[in-house]
């Protein structure tokens, strides 16, 4: 009897409210949710009624939607999709063994929400800008690469690419460091995604106080006016998926 876990929350924070809320959610969504509590932690779960060999995108989105609805009302640790356990005892065990870590992270994310902030090169800008710089780079040929031999020409081509790449990295790092300084005024919880395509100048997730949303929006507006040539996108509020990473026992 597989049990699907959706979220973990702090029982001490409005304990009665959550059972009402879950009842209501069960009614609305036609999924029978249950609450499993231990060590002042509560897990929101449901029993997987049908066994599936394949998963559809709709299943994943339904799951994410439920986590989102719970997160709108309560401070929760969202579970990753596929968090399935085989018995109630496993859940209790999980909560007991990791109570301290769960409480620590729950405290951190309490009354906060996650947002994604991305700043991307617009293709046109990218091409225009770095082609311009590439012609600059062409002009400054290192002495050692002066000459007509095929080998030197090859190296020169590589060298020019290298210079453009360096300029590009510098350009990105420069913007990043400025943005970090400003973001730090809003929150200390900022994570940069480094595994991105070259088009990304910034791909960050941040965790902010619910009350700081206005401040964030104002900041993003300013960002766009500072860099009108780039694409800017802010999504959220999300459950704190990126700030709920815990090493579980």
């Amino acid at each position, binding site marked *: 009897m597989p049990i699907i876990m959706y979220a973990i929350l702090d029982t001490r924070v409005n304990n009665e409210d959550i059972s009402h809320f879950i009842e209501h959610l069960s009614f609305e969504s036609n999924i029978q949710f249950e609450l499993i509590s231990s060590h002042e932690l509560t897990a929101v779960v449901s029993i997987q009624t049908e066994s599936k060999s394949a998963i559809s995108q709709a299943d994943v989105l339904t799951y994410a939607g439920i986590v989102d609805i719970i997160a709108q009302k309560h401070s929760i640790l969202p579970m990753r999709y596929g968090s399935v356990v085989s018995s109630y005892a496993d859940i209790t065990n999980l909560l007991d063994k990791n109570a301290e870590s769960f409480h620590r992270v729950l405290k951190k994310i309490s009354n906060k929400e996650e947002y994604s902030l991305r700043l991307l090169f617009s293709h046109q800008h990218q091409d225009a800008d770095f082609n311009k710089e590439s012609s600059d780079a062409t002009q400054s040929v*290192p002495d050692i690469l002066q000459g007509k031999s095929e080998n030197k020409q090859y*190296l020169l081509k590589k060298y020019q690419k290298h210079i453009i790449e360096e300029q590009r990295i510098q350009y990105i790092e420069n913007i990043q460091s400025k943005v970090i300084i400003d973001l730090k005024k809003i929150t200390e919880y900022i994570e940069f995604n480094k595994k991105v395509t070259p088009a990304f100048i910034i791909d960050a997730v941040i965790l902010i106080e619910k009350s700081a949303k206005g401040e964030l929006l104002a900041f993003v507006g300013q960002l766009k006016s500072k860099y009108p040539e780039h694409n*800017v*996108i802010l999504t959220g509020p999300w459950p704190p998926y990126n700030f709920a990473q815990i090493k579980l026992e």
Partner: protein
Amino acid sequence: MQEDKILFYAGSANEIIEELEKIKPGDQGRINATPENVDSGLAKLVLTLIELIRKLMEKQAMRRIDGDSLTEEQIENLGETLMKLENKMDELKKIFNLTDKDLNLNLGPLGDLL
């Protein structure tokens, strides 16, 4: 709930979507070695490592050029070697039907190899 998550966006939506598609979690970079495709799986692994070393060499060479510490003769040798290496690499990629995109490994939390 799911449609109202965009709080601010300015720029080309198509460009944004295109880039987001690229970083979507997927199974690119995974080496699926099965008895049927073990040859190309192995070739992919070996070529990925060669490509990594080749790129490192190239980077190092550019640093040396920047540092201006190479002699005329060394420059000629360097250019020839790197050029031949790149051509050889292109040949091998063609033989094993691999693209640049295939020659990468997803190292999980460490990001991509190349």
